[in-house]
């Protein structure tokens, strides 16, 4: 079985609200696919449809070419973590993993393995109700890994993790992808996926806004623009114009040049003897690139927000 998730034309509404509006994408093995979009964009709903928990009105979701619900022992194909808080408070971590393991025809030995590996050995017999969110995330990840699946699907796994936990989670997701597994990770914060995701499926209003590799997205967003600060504006414009670049004045006395990389701009100015105080490539973060993409699609935007919570 191929380690893929294929989502095709999912459509679903909850009452008057359209939750999924033709959602389509594919998750490939050997890479971490970031599933990004603002709250309410349909990420969690899509994941529930993939797991056969919610029924779509149209479209289908296949795991390795088959509907999830038709898989025998499905957790051996796809391990998932939807909500780390979905625990019976009175049950111990080990008890939680034990029933899951038995439901997949796995043994208690496998439970003890994942407990050990998730670093939960000391708390395994404690009531899960007393766990911190970070510990619950670890327990959830351990549960997803029980069946040693080739496909992992995690909904907001960075939520509630401390910085150390975030570093661990990134390394863990990367190592899964290196082993050839398909990993789908949702987040509403693009920054969480920086240095983690290889591929991005950006969604808004129930549909895919962009389905692209991280490298391509960054390049496209930068658009080859360069910022120039100089006292000799007319000379600089003449020199660059001759080389075929478009030059525009920015509000703060700087010039924005498009069509030429920063190195070429420096070379041209140096040859023409034009003095300049700064030449900088337009540095685009993944978050800015993502913001540009979703400006149209974002449903609810906090109006003037210093930290854009997407």
């Amino acid at each position, binding site marked *: 079985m191929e380690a893929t998730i294929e989502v095709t034309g999912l459509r679903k509404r909850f009452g008057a609200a359209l939750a999924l509006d033709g959602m389509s994408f594919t998750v490939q093995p050997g890479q971490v696919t970031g599933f990004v979009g603002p709250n309410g964009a349909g990420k969690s709903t899509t994941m*529930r449809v993939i*797991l*056969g*928990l*919610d*029924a779509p009105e149209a479209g289908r979701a296949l795991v390795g070419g088959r509907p*999830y*619900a*038709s*898989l*025998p*022992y*499905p*957790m*051996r*194909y796809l391990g*998932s973590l*939807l*909500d780390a*808080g*979905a*625990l*019976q*408070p*009175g*049950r*111990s971590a080990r*008890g*939680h993993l*034990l*029933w*899951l393991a*038995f*439901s*997949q*025809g796995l043994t208690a030995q*496998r439970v003890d*393995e*994942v407990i*050990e*590996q*998730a*670093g939960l050995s000391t708390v395994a017999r404690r009531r899960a109700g007393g766990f911190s969110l970070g510990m619950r995330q670890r327990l959830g*990840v*351990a*549960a997803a*890994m029980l069946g*040693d699946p080739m496909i992992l699907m995690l909904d907001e796994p960075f939520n509630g993790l401390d910085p150390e936990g975030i570093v*661990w989670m990134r*390394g*863990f997701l990367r*190592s*899964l992808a290196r*082993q050839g597994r398909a990993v789908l990770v949702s987040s509403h914060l693009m920054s969480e996926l920086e240095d983690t995701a290889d591929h991005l499926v950006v969604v808004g209003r129930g549909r895919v806004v962009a389905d692209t590799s991280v490298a391509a997205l960054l390049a496209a967003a930068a658009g080859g623009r360069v910022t120039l600060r100089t006292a000799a504006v007319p000379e600089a414009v003449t020199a660059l114009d001759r080389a075929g670049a478009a030059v525009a004045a920015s509000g703060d006395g700087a010039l924005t040049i498009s069509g030429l990389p920063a190195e070429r701009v420096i070379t041209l100015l140096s040859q023409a003897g034009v003095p300049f105080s700064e030449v900088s490539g337009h540095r685009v973060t993944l978050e800015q690139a993502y913001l540009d993409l979703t400006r149209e699609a974002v449903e609810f935007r906090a109006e003037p927000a210093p930290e854009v919570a997407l």
Partner: protein
Amino acid sequence: MSSGLIAPRRPGLRPDRASFAQALRAEWVKFRTVRGWVIAMIVAALITVFLGIFAAGNLSIGCQSRPNGPVLTGRACTPHFPIGPDGEAVVDSYYFAHQTLTGNGSITVRVASLTGLYSSNGKGGQNPLAGMTKGLVPWAKAGIIVTDGMRPGSAYAAVMVTGAHGVRMQDNYVHDTAGLTGQATATSPRWLRLIRSGDTITGYDSADGSHWSLVGSTVLTGLRHSVQAGLFVTSPIYTVTAQSFGSSTTHGGPSQATAAFDDISRRGTWPAKAWIGTEVGTGAASPGTGIGYVRVTPGAVTVSGSGDIAPLATGPGASGPVSVFEQPLTGLFAGLIAIVVVAAMFFTVEYRRGLIRTTLAASPRRGRVLAAKATVVGAVAFVVGLVASVLAITLGLPRQRNQGSYVLPASMLTELRVIVGTAALVAITAVMAVAIGAILRRSAAAVTAAIVVIVLPFLLAVTVLPVSVAAWVLRLTPAAGFAIEQSIPHYPQVSSVISPADGSYPLPPWGGFAVLCAWAVVALAGAYVLLRRRDA
């Protein structure tokens, strides 16, 4: 631990077809790993046992060995009842005008009239007949009988006219078949005939003495060669139950019936010539007045008697402190509440925390999840019910007996049915609560609904509801299942009030249990449909 969670690939391991056994095992682990649920189940058993023992030891029976004698308590008060051929306690007291019949033969009579007296205020006194009102109680009986002997509890077959139930053929206390309807009066007398042929006794009736119809036939295994046969009259205690919402009071007293027989003919060998009058079954166990007689005139015989030939019933009309085998199970309703709460919450807590999604992601076949949950809870509840009923009965019955109560005997098989049936009642109730939990998804709503639907009707029926309403509640609601506990069946040929508090139910044991099962099936079907249709 960056990649620690990744186990070495096991290429040899092929996922097998997931089986129901795996889902079952998972749900069992879910149950036993929540300590609160396990404790609640133990508490349920303890409540049942303690309430039962308390009820069994709280009968407050007192008696006097002679009028104005010292008041006795405990075993000294235990009444003794004759035991019928089928092993049940019986009432066997009547006035008998009899002769010996040797070998096969028959007797035919005409019942020209049946009249009676009854004590409406329930007072006996020195002369029980003083102050009685004219009238027949419904189950006053007069007719002909063939009996193995006059020791109370003997095997017999009889055909008779009754106060209000027409002609009946009855045998061995518990069997009853209807014949002609209507009362026997001077203008419409009844002819009755009994034929003995070996062990077989056959009864006939006729409205005119020439056209006969078969009422019934029975085999009295091992019937003596020489039997006592003749005319009998008996009349049971008259009871009136006054019902008002919240309470019912019963009063009554002995009654007496008198029948005129004529047109008597006999076939076969009847060595004696005259009728001998015998008062059968007098004493403490007799509900009669003890004043019977036979008067022989040319061509006619008048017999007057009091008492009953019937299975012994509990409740109003029972002679003496009588209780039933299942009495120590009185506390079951309380234990059941705890079990219902756990059973409903076994499903609803998963919705509360979103755990249901984990469950259904692990086992996408939802019907299988429902079945596994119901099976686990049902099995646990069965064991709890079994332990509780065994303990309550083994600890409660001796206390009941030590208090001086006569525990109506039941067959081993019946006792087994009461104990195992109680466990099954608990199990099916729990399964129904699981289904209600799956339907309603919220703990408070599901627990309330389960208690209101299952336990409350029973509590209302045994406490405040008027008897007629209670009877319908115990026919139609899941509370009908409590009938499985009854060790003594309700006999329609005995005037007794149907009251679960006394161990009688309107439906037979398995009939009532079937009603509960039907409810459980409906609830499970609803849960299955909704579980499949709804998003998790």
